């Protein structure tokens, strides 16, 4: 959809209030980069339930939603913490005990479904899938025969998220967003979704934003909230690197239901929300993540 209000600035609570229980959400960024963590934490604070998430390879955003009991259906292509921190603890536990519905998908399939939505088409063919077991997870897929070659391909329906949650390093009051590559699926999410709900580390003037370059234009964006370190502990380059230590703290806590609940109590359910979160992390620890550009040694040192 298209949003024409000249000023889209709202606070985080208002931004998150656009998301209802059971919403189909596209999660921006991926792995350790530009995860919409502030929005995820706010949705947990507001007690959202029954969420259905779609996207490519994600980590703590999905796992935290699972740990908080906010998520019902997971349609990401991967959820985990790579080789470094391993499997996603809460996600794994919920999947193995059947408390969430698994609709694991594949990058090209998701991309194709988003393209169908973006192109206004009721289906698109996709190459691959045949020969794998992915259709066991997706009984909704169908088949289509190429009218030119006779080849039978898998057909997929459009995927129209209710909202795309996107964190950007910079934005303006109209909702224009600058992203640093990789954009992952965020541009496609913007075109396919009913709305983009954005957080940005910093709101700047449109002139300054144009200097950086606009990746996602304002007309896709329903609301933009300025939340410094809004992707933490994921990265938001060029502003800050990811906080490997804090990711480790989370993964350790999430390994058991009790300590996961304690993490959420301690780091998410703070009465003063994101201000409290940043205060608890401490100025020094956050500033350290911004020093990546000083030298290779400094950058490397963040991950040692």
């Amino acid at each position, binding site marked *: 959809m298209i949003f024409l209000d000249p000023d889209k600035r709202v606070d985080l609570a208002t931004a998150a209030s656009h998301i209802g229980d059971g919403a189909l959400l596209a999660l921006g960024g991926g792995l350790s980069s530009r995860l919409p963590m502030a929005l995820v934490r706010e949705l947990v604070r507001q007690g959202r339930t029954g969420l259905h998430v779609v996207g490519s390879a994600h980590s703590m955003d999905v796992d935290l939603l699972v740990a908080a009991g906010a998520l019902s259906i997971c349609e990401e292509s991967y959820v985990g913490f790579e080789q470094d921190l391993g499997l996603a603890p809460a996600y794994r536990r919920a999947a193995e005990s059947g408390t969430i519905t698994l609709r694991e998908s594949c990058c090209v399939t998701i991309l194709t479904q988003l393209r169908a939505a973006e192109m206004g088409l009721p289906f698109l063919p996709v190459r691959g899938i*045949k020969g794998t077991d992915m259709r066991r997870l997706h009984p909704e897929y169908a088949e289509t025969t190429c009218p030119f070659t006779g080849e039978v391909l898998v057909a997929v329906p459009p995927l129209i998220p209710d909202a795309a949650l996107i964190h950007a390093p910079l934005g303006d009051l109209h909702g224009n967003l600058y992203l640093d590559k990789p954009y992952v699926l965020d541009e496609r999410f913007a075109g396919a979704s009913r709305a983009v709900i954005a957080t940005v580390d910093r709101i700047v003037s449109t002139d300054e934003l144009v200097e950086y370059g606009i990746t996602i234009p304002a007309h896709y964006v329903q609301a933009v909230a300025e939340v410094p370190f809004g992707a933490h502990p994921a990265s938001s380059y060029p502003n800050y690197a990811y906080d490997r230590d804090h990711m480790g703290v989370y993964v350790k806590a999430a390994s058991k239901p009790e300590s996961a609940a304690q993490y959420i109590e301690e780091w998410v359910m703070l009465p003063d929300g994101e201000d409290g979160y940043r205060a608890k992390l401490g100025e020094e620890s956050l500033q350290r993540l911004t020093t990546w550009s000083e030298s290779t040694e400094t950058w490397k040192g963040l991950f040692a």
Partner: protein
Amino acid sequence: MTYTFDEWFVVTLARTISDREVVFHGFGSPCAQVAMHVAKRTHAPDMLLIEGAMYAVNPNPPFIPPTGNDSSLKQGAAYSMKFEEFFDAAIRGDVDRMFLSGGQIDAYGNTNVTAVGPLEKPKVKLGGGGGGCNISATIGQLTLWTTRHRSGRTLVDKCDFITDIGHVTPAGNRAELGYTGGGPQWMVTELGVFDYDSEGRARLIEVFSDVDVDTVREATGFEFTTAADVKTVASPTCAELAIVRGIDPLGVRKSEFDPAELTRTYDHVHDPGCNC
């Protein structure tokens, strides 16, 4: 000079790359990631190196970080692809090689990165396939690898779930499925190296110097043939070792291995052809 097994392993992966290939690794794959940079800096200078989750083209990262989409991985790249740009290229056949691993791998090179045990109630929910499922059908050649062969649970007779396509699936072979990619060409494990025979089944061709064929057989859940003459995997050159150490000072590659494997240490024998 001595070197450790993780270094030898990475160099062995690197040597599966030919020059002038377009090569990709997925995220969460530090061994393949380091291997690609080793190849680019040694025998494959004109390969097109596409950096995993960054889609950066021929970057020159100052170090390999412990996550697959840190900005350090696009340093020195004039260009980074968009997500769809890479995946379109892979589907239409413009990518020559991909590195692919799995929690389970069968004799035909089908891999499972979705779930071990019944899908409805998995014993282990693995992370998921990322982008491998579709593009394993169309990319030119696959280099499979695993660092968990010895566990006995990785190379299996039958995958509990096929996430990525090998040579033959229960639904048919690649020709029958209409897939243009060549499928698995090599499989490198911490025990040895396999190629694939005309029926698409893994065949052992090399073992590491501290491994014998029986050890491989005991750890493998499927029957396999061997080359007439199973050789020892070629040792790394000191130039290759220097590059491994230079590109991966944090030792991120080590995170793929059981700690016991990291104690495997070797003496470097000077090769007269090596200008160390």
